[in-house]
C-alpha cells in the first residue's frame, strides 16, 4: 500500500489531469477559442466567445466529469461488495431499471425533465427490488445478490427491447442515444456532482474496512469489521451513484468496469487511494471521451457511450488476458 505522502501525490496528479481535461473540453469544438480568451472569460474581465464557451461547454464538461467519477466510484464499490473483479455499476440491474423508466418516458414523448425523473425512479425501483429479493432469506450473499441483479437486469433488457420495437420511428433515435449514453442533452450538472461529493464523503471513512471486506465476510468480521452494516452502506452508495450517473447521461458503458482496474494496476488495491483515484480518473476519461464524441465527426455528435466502449473493450480484454490466475 502506498504511504500517505505517495497517496496524496497520486491524487494531486489525477486532479491535475481532471483540470487539464476540462480545459481541453472548453477549448475544443466548432467554435474555436484561444486559451487567452478563455482565461479572460474565467477571470470575468471580458465576454464574447470565451464567455459563450464557458456558458455552453462548462456545464457539459462538469456533467461529464461527475458522471465518469460516479460510474468509476460505483464500479470500484461494486467490485468490493461482490468480491468480483468483473462487477460493474450496471451488474445489479440499476441501469436496466433506469433504462426502462427513461424508455417509457421517451416512448410516450414526455419532456426531458419527465424522462430524467422516470429514469431515476426506475433506478431506485430496481435497487429496492434487487435488495428485497436478494434479502429474501436474510442471507443476501454475494452470489444471491449477483444472480438477482443479473436476472432483474435481463428482465429490464427485455422491456427496453419491447419498447424499442414498438416505438414510433422518429423516437427510436433518441432512445438509442439514451441507451448508449449521451451527454448532448445534459445541461444540469450539479445534482450528479452533489451525489458524487456525498458518495465520496460517505465511502472514504470506510475505505480501510473495504480492503478487508474483499477478503471474505467472515474474515473481515474476524478483523473487526461490522460486515452487515458496511455492506448495506456500500450497496446504497454504489446504487445511488449509479442512479445519479445514469439519470444524467444514460447508460455509459465500461467506465465503471475499466477505470477501477486501470487505477488498481497503477497504484494497487488500497481502497483509501483507489476510491478517490478511480473517481478522478473516471471523471477525466469521460470528459475526454465526450470532447472526442462531439468533435470527431462534427457537426454530428456521437453517443459518448460508444466511444468509451470502443476504448474500453480492448483495454479490458488486454487486462483480462494478463490477469494472473
Amino acid at each position, binding site marked *: *500500500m502506498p*504511504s*500517505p505522502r505517495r497517496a496524496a501525490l497520486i491524487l494531486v496528479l489525477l486532479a491535475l489531469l481532471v483540470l487539464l481535461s476540462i480545459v481541453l473540453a472548453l477549448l475544443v469544438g466548432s467554435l474555436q477559442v484561444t486559451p487567452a480568451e478563455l482565461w479572460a472569460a474565467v477571470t470575468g474581465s471580458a465576454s464574447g466567445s470565451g464567455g459563450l464557451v464557458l456558458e455552453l461547454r462548462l456545464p457539459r464538461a462538469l456533467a461529464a466529469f461527475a458522471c465518469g467519477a460516479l460510474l468509476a466510484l460505483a464500479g470500484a464499490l461494486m*467490485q468490493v461488495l461482490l*468480491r*468480483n*473483479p468483473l462487477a460493474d455499476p450496471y451488474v445489479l440491474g440499476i441501469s436496466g431499471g433506469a433504462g426502462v423508466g427513461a424508455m417509457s418516458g421517451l416512448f410516450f414523448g414526455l419532456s426531458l425533465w419527465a424522462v430524467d425523473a422516470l429514469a431515476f425512479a426506475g433506478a431506485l425501483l430496481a435497487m429496492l427490488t434487487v435488495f428485497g429479493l436478494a434479502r429474501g432469506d436474510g442471507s443476501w450473499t454475494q452470489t444471491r445478490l449477483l444472480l438477482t441483479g443479473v436476472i432483474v437486469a435481463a428482465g429490464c433488457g427485455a422491456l427496453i427491447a419491447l419498447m424499442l420495437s414498438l416505438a414510433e420511428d422518429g423516437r427510436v433515435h433518441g432512445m438509442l442515444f439514451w441507451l448508449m449514453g449521451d451527454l448532448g442533452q445534459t445541461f444540469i450538472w450539479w445534482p450528479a456532482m452533489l451525489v458524487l461529493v456525498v458518495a465520496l464523503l460517505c465511502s472514504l*471513512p470506510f475505505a*480501510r*474496512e473495504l*480492503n*478487508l471486506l*474483499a*477478503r*471474505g465476510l*467472515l*474474515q473481515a*468480521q*474476524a*478483523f*473487526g*469489521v*461490522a*460486515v452487515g452494516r458496511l455492506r448495506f452502506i456500500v450497496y446504497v452508495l454504489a446504487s445511488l451513484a449509479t442512479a445519479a450517473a445514469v439519470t444524467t447521461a444514460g447508460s455509459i458503458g465500461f467506465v465503471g468496469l475499466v477505470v477501477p482496474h486501470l487505477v*488498481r494496476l497503477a497504484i*494497487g*488495491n*488500497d481502497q*483509501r487511494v483507489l476510491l478517490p483515484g478511480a473517481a478522478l480518473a473516471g471523471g477525466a476519461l469521460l470528459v475526454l471521451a465526450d470532447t472526442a464524441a462531439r468533435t470527431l465527426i462534427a457537426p454530428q455528435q456521437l453517443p459518448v457511450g460508444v466511444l468509451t466502449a470502443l476504448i474500453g473493450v480492448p483495454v479490458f480484454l488486454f487486462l483480462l488476458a494478463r490477469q*494472473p490466475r
Partner: protein
Amino acid sequence: MSGPYVAPLAARQLVVEVGGRRVIDGLDLNVAAGECLGILGRNGAGKSTLLTTLAGLRPPAQGEVLLAGTPYPQLNPRAAALQRGWLGQFQQDPFGASVLETALAGRHPHLGRWDWESAADGAKVREALSLLGLAGMEQRQVHTLSGGERQRLALATLLVQAPGVYLLDEPLSHLDLNHQMAVLRLFSQLAHTQGAAVVMVLHEPALAHRFCDRALLIHGDGRCVQGTADETLTAAKLSELYAYRLRQISDGDQRCFIPE
C-alpha cells in the same frame, strides 16, 4: 487482582446446528489463559462450525459464547477483534495484494478510522513474518505464494492482530512437516509462556496429544467428550471417534496412533 477468575473464552449450554442437524448439544467449555485445546472429529462433524461460533462469527442455535465474560452480542466487532483472532480454512484474495499489505490487515482493530499504518505496524509485520519463515517476502504478491506459504501468511497476520484468544481451523493444512512442528511449537509457546488461550482443530491425534493440554472430541451427533489430552486421546476413544480401529504406541510421554 481480586474477584472470580474469568476465562478468556467460554461456552455455556452451547447448541450448534448445521443444515438443521444438531452437531453440538449443550456444550459447556472453558478455555483458560495459557491453555492449548485441540478439537478433533470426523469430516462434517461440525468442528469448523463450532470454531466460527466460538469466534462469534456465527450465532449459536442456543446458549452463548463469552469472550472474557462478555457475550458476543454485547461486543462490537472491533472490540471482539482485539481479543480473539480466527484462522479460517480458506484464504481468499480476489484482488492482488502484497504479503506486507495482507499481513497489515491484522492491525485493523488497533487503528482508528483515519489512522494510516505506521512504521511500528510495519515492524510488527516483519517480526511476525520472520517467525513464520516468511522474512524478506514483504513485497511478493500473494497469488505467487504456494499453498503452505499462503497458510503461514494467514498465521502471521493473526500474530500481527495479537489477540489473547486464538481460534485456528486446521492451522497445519498445506504445511510440510518442518513447518507443522514450527507452527505447533509457536502457538503452544504463545499459550504456555505468554498466557494466550489457543484452540485448534487438528487431524493428527499424536500431534494433538503432544502439543495440547486438553482435547475436545466431537462426534457430530451432539455428543462431545472433553478432558486432558492424556485421558481423551486414547486408542479406545479415538477409535470410536473416527469409527476406525487405532492402535496406540507409547514412547516415553509421547503417543502414536496407528490405523489397523
